[in-house]
């Protein structure tokens, strides 16, 4: 998923869309074997990511019941509707209030059956996936009734409706037989024959082809049950209003009134109040849900104030924005405070996209010249240096190391330079190869559209300065982060030559989620395109199509490792950082992190001391 404006990883500027990090390894093994696993695999991701990464806190299994958690955020959730939620902060609320088919324990990437009773049964050569759901799971008031498999079917179908506009339904769930290819106007017009519910506790997915990513996607909030009879009137509106009337299935719910309106619990850009869901039965859940109440205070725009309030104990954790880099440095130097700060590697990378659809970056050698000349160390410094992460040299991040991607060629750095500060002679060599006699680019001024606030604006200045070293005249246009995406970089017709502030994060622990959307030619759409380089290489496209179908873990890793190498060598995008996300807890709480969700606080596992 691309990085949106709300979620700021370091300093300010880049909002990051939701990140789901599942354990595809476990899933893939299940798929390959075509058998039913008794429970979720305990295998966790091997994390070798960068300097500054701290081990997650131990699983909080003996927390004290009760208490209130105060969370500080700079901004608001995109929506309370699990069918729309697609951003890390959304997930903090969704995974505390809802139960998708599968989810995660705190402080690990381990997947557990959540609404499902067990891991899915795979049959018919990987084309039929059967999931049984638990009995005794009930919707919160005012619905109150027991959840059935039909609620999951409706939830997935409504995700394909334009007025719900789920961001990933068409990516991971369109492989279901009969799933719409284009979004429909309302959920009422969507019916997916490939989803069957033979009884109240069984849901069967018939796929048009085997899909290595489909089971991983069952951890996503689209599988959160939605009661059709209750949601239908809200879903009939031009933009679904279910988010303002959402009902819960998890341990917590957004405070609401008798009609289900959550206004009492959610005042956009002001607060979110989560209270216990009276219909939640702990016996059906693996989450302890120690806290009685979670108060989310939105609008804390200054990251220094935020960090100081947490250290002072007037708040307990940062929900969407990191502490200011200066504060992080100060905290790290304090032995007591240091124990309250956790760094979690963010799976995905930031990169500079070069528009391959028009000159001069339709020329491979010119692109490679840029890949050589960029001073990635200086770029990293614009985001705070080593505390922000480590320099990226390709796209499958180090959390995947050791899973077999190396066999395909992943983990290579085809454009090396001393200390990653850029290699001007090699860049000039590339330009000579492209036909520029003295190794200096000569041609029309190129355009670059970037953030108008730090750190993105500073990164753009570094990129522009580096490009000038090899003869480019750069016209830098600075705009708001959402404008940068929607008007320029995501709009192929308006796309500039260079987009220096883009990035992509995984949806769950599968390399496909890192490479398929941002570099598949099929992803180039007229609006909101996520293929920012507009890379449309037939060889890469066909390699992706073949890899999507692979369900064998080893073969899959090798295939995606190969694609990683191909994309990196294309220099259509130049990766430069794998980031870590800092989460700061007050001393009055026992911490718990959604390791799979960028290290966001896990409300279902945190307790007060």
């Amino acid at each position, binding site marked *: 998923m691309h990085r949106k404006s709300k979620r700021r990883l370091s300093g300010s500027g880049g909002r990051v869309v939701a990140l789901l990090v599942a354990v595809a390894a476990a899933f893939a093994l299940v798929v390959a074997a075509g058998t039913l696993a008794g429970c979720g695999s305990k295998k966790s991701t091997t994390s070798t990511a960068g300097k500054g990464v701290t081990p997650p806190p131990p699983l909080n299994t003996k927390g004290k019941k009760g208490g209130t958690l105060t969370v500080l955020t700079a901004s608001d959730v995109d929506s309370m509707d699990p069918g729309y939620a697609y951003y890390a902060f959304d997930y903090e609320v969704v995974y505390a209030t809802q139960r998708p088919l599968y989810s995660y324990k705190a402080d690990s990437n381990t997947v557990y059956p959540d609404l499902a009773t067990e891991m899915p049964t795979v049959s018919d050569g990987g084309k039929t996936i059967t999931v049984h759901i638990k009995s005794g799971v009930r919707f919160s008031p005012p619905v109150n009734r027991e959840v059935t498999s039909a609620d999951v079917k409706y939830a997935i179908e409504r995700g394909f409706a334009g007025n719900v506009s789920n961001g990933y339904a068409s990516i991971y769930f369109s492989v279901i037989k009969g799933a719409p290819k284009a979004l429909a106007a309302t959920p009422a017009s969507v019916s997916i024959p490939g989803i069957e519910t033979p009884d109240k506790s069984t849901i069967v997915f018939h796929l048009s082809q085997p899909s290595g990513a489909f089971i991983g996607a069952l951890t996503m909030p689209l599988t959160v049950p939605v009661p059709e009879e209750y949601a239908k009137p809200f879903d009939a509106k031009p933009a679904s209003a279910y988010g303002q009337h959402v009902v819960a299935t998890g341990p917590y719910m957004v405070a609401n009134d008798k009609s289900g309106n959550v206004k009492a619990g959610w005042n956009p850009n002001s607060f979110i109040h989560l209270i216990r869901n009276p219909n939640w039965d702990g016996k059906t859940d693996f989450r302890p849900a120690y806290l009685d109440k979670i108060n989310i205070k939105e609008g804390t725009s200054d990251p220094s104030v935020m960090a100081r309030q947490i250290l002072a104990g007037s708040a307990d954790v940062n929900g969407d924005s990191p502490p200011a880099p200066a504060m992080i440095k100060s905290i790290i130097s304090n032995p007591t405070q240091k124990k309250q700060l956790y760094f979690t590697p963010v799976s995905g990378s930031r990169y500079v996209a070069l528009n391959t659809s028009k000159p001069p970056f339709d020329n491979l050698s010119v692109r490679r010249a840029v890949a050589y000349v960029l001073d990635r160390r200086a770029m990293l410094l614009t985001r705070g240096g080593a505390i922000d992460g480590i320099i990226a040299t390709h796209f499958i991040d180090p959390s995947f190391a050791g899973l077999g991607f190396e066999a395909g060629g992943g983990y290579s750095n085809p454009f090396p330079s001393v200390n990653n500060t850029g290699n001007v002679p090699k860049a000039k060599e590339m330009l000579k190869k492209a036909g520029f006699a003295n190794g200096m680019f000569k041609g029309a001024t190129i355009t670059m559209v970037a953030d108008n606030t730090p750190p993105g604006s500073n990164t753009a200045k570094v990129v522009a300065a580096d490009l000038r070293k090899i003869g480019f005249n750069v016209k830098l246009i600075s705009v708001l982060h*959402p404008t940068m995406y929607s008007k320029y970089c995501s709009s192929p017709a308006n796309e500039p030559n260079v987009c220096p502030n883009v990035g992509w994060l995984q949806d769950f622990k599968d390399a496909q989620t890192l490479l398929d959307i941002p570099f598949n030619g099929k992803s180039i759409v007229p609006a909101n395109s996520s293929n920012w380089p507009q890379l449309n290489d037939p060889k890469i496209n066909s390699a992706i199509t073949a890899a999507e179908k692979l369900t064998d873990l080893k073969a899959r890793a090798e295939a995606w490792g190969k694609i990683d190498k191909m994309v990196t060598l294309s220099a259509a995008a130049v990766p430069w950082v794998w980031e870590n996300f800092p989460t700061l807890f007050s001393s009055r709480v026992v911490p718990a992190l959604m390791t799979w969700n960028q290290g966001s606080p896990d409300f279902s596992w945190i307790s007060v001391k």
Partner: protein
Amino acid sequence: MLGVIAGLLMRPFRSPMLRYVVRRVLWGIAMLVIVSALTFIIFYLFPSADPAQLRAGRNPNPGAVAAIRHSLGLDKPFYVQYWLYMKNLVLHFDLGYSYFNQTSVRAEIFARLPVTASLAFGALILWLLIGIPVGIISAIKPRSILDRLTMSGSLVAISAPVYWLGLVALFLFANDIGVLRLFPGSGTYVPFSQDPVGWFTSLILPWFVLAASFAAFYARMVRAQVRETMTEDFIRTARAKGLSERRVIFRHGLRAALTPVVTMAGLDLSGLLGGAILTETVFNIPGVGRYAYDAIVNSDFPPIQGTVLFSAFFIISANIIVDVVYAFLDPRVRF
């Protein structure tokens, strides 16, 4: 007969004063229309985010974006959108719905207005209480140490950005992160109806921060006004009549000097009622200014338009009131 009725209807407008008031009100309405049109033009013609694309999520098919654009009414020509907006505004006082979270802009602004009013009125009282006495003292004792100190201080207060001053106030005086821990800090606002004491204490720091630059400006303005007034002939006459200096200053000098101050205060207050964006942002106060800030960050046009119109309404209304009051005081203005 018709002529008689028309004559009766038009009779009130024979009054130059009434004609003037009607003219000013009509101009005010015209100004609001111009402001709304300009905001529309700025949003649509200059680079801004496309709400339909923002809403559509990543990699949508073109049909999805088109469907969302249609549902938001963004597929209509610019002038049709503007016409529909103004029609809903005039007929239903409907300011539209947020593209971001589908909440009613009117409801949000009215819910937040008491918050902003609390901040603005409190700050107004403070800056008048500080600015006027300081200005008078400086005017009475020009070039004294007190005058030099207060005027230098006022320069600092005018020059200090509100954002910076707010952070300094928090780091010094907030009861959670401050050095002295005296007053509630960021994110502590509670409505008056819930907790009057909490409401008052949570606004002490924001009031001072918001009032600081105004107080400094007013001190300088009062100083200049009082000094000028004190050189007028009527003051010399008052002194010649043997009145005490205190009586000369307070009964004669100040009354004349403070008239423009009252006018300025009205205009400044009206501007703040549209939202004290920086103060509300630094102290995380959920007022109209904070609402405008969030809308700008999210490229959420209906709240931007709503808050701009709201702010313009207050400013234009205050201007009209001031003009009308002046017209009452000075008949020359009416013509």
